[in-house]
């Protein structure tokens, strides 16, 4: 399978501030992300997940080591536009990434920057807006939309570049549950139907459950890496990174500590119910709870 992003022995130091010392975020980080996959990067505040994300499209450049994006070195200046076009970025606050007062003109911003022909821009804008389900709103003013709608416009603005990969840096942090669901559904659909690689950075465990792969970061290091089942069953490890595991895993973990024989890798509510039902139904555990 094609490699989307390869991080090779990455080190990064934030430039010296006046009063603070130089802080090193990564010291020798390695990571590969495959084309077409849905990867969730989890971590507590300040674990370096956003800093890592900014390396994926050359907003930040490594202090040491290399980041390769579709085979292109991010430190090579001539490749910059090609890299940014291949890897789109969506940020936390939708208000601060919408440039225009009209939805469709905002979506057109990136292709306009790339010098695409007007007819082709029109086609891409319409398609991008349809993909995120905001086509009916194409002539609206963004500040009148809900948070989830704004964030979907921001996603459309990135898709209009026809990227192979989208990096979303806590896209749901400022949204209500409804908006959160809209954004996640959109992102999953893009991954499934268009084969776009998705890198979702979040601290909500629930959002990572449906990913193909979960990477947990802490203190600039990768703490765990695997399928959601593999990662979330390592409850103690996650708790040591100040992360709370999904509610279902929490419940199963608590039951296990009480001596109930349940598996830890049941992630959906349905699976969890089944597991508990089986454990108690078979009568292998005491029912003192």
């Amino acid at each position: 399978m094609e490699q989307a992003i390869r991080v090779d022995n990455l080190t990064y130091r934030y430039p010296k501030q006046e009063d603070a010392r130089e802080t090193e975020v990564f010291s020798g980080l390695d990571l590969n992300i495959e084309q077409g996959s849905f990867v969730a990067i989890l971590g507590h505040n300040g674990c370096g997940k956003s800093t890592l994300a900014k390396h994926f499209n050359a907003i930040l450049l490594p202090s040491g080591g290399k980041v390769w994006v579709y085979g292109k070195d991010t430190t090579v200046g001539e490749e910059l536009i090609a890299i940014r076009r291949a890897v789109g970025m969506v940020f936390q606050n939708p208000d601060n990434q919408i440039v225009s007062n009209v939805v469709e003109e905002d979506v057109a911003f990136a292709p306009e920057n790339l010098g695409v022909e007007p007819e082709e821009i029109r086609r891409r804008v319409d398609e991008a807006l349809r993909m995120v389900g905001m086509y009916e709103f194409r002539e609206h003013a963004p500040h009148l939309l809900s948070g989830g709608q704004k964030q979907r416009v921001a996603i459309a603005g990135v898709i209009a570049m026809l990227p192979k990969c989208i990096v979303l840096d806590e896209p749901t942090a400022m949204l209500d549950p409804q908006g959160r669901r809209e954004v996640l559904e959109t992102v999953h659909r893009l991954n499934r139907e268009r084969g776009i690689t998705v890198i979702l950075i979040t601290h909500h465990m629930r959002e990572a459950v449906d990913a193909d792969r979960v990477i947990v970061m802490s203190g600039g290091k990768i703490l765990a890496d695997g399928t959601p089942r593999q990662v979330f069953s390592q409850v103690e490890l996650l708790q040591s990174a100040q992360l709370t595991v999904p509610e279902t895993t929490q419940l199963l973990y608590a039951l296990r500590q009480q001596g109930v024989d349940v598996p830890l890798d049941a992630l959906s509510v349905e699976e969890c119910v089944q597991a508990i039902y089986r454990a108690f139904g078979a009568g292998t555990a005491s029912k003192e709870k």
Partner: protein
Amino acid sequence: MLKDITLGQYFPGNTVVHRLDPRTKLLMVILFIVALFTAEGPIAYLTVFLFLGVAVGLSRIPPRTILKGLKPLVVIICLTGLLNLFYTPGTPVVKFWVLTITREGIFSALFMIWRILMLITGTFMLTYTTSPIALTDGLELLLNPLKRIKVPVHELAMMMSIALRFIPTLIEETDKIMSAQKARGAAFAPGSILQRARALIPILVPLFVSALRRADELAVAMECRCYQGGKGRTRMKRLRFAGRDYVTLVLGILLVAAMIVLRVVRI
């Protein structure tokens, strides 16, 4: 409250006025202002008023929206009116204390108020019916010749459109900050001017901090979307003059010509 300020706000629509080329509308505003300042005599005033009235009617912008937009300017308008009322020399009509109202004063006050109202409503017609990006495009193209003398036309146009884009966002934010400060016991309404000015500090400081952070984030987001300045940039909507644009511009020129004629004839 603050949300009622409609300055620089675009109301999407599909009327003739909306469809006019932004360059036409920009030039029309200039022509309209010229006409406004050459106008003299009741016929001229009425003509300009009717001209604007037709434009407002065609744009289907409800007059109430325009009145709402004028509201914040009531103080300035009244002040100008009063100053003209009392400080124009001429035949006295009413005299009391040190103040004299002259016949000329009444006319010039009414005229000044009319002029300001026309001026503001005229510019409203531009911003209400033209999306900021279209406006920026228009400005950029109109000012394009200045690029030769190294005026950063694209950058200026971009700055303007971003400023317009963030007006509603920052107003919303100001409202939020004010509520937050009020919840902590800050008082904005009473007190002397000095006290009230001081009361604004707890609003302005967080507003500026947040505006700077927004600017920073927006700059990164724009870079992520491959923004590299005006070079090699294309536009989804190309501007083209249509028949209606020429007709409108001719009407604008005729208006100015009429004003000049009326002025000359009167004298």
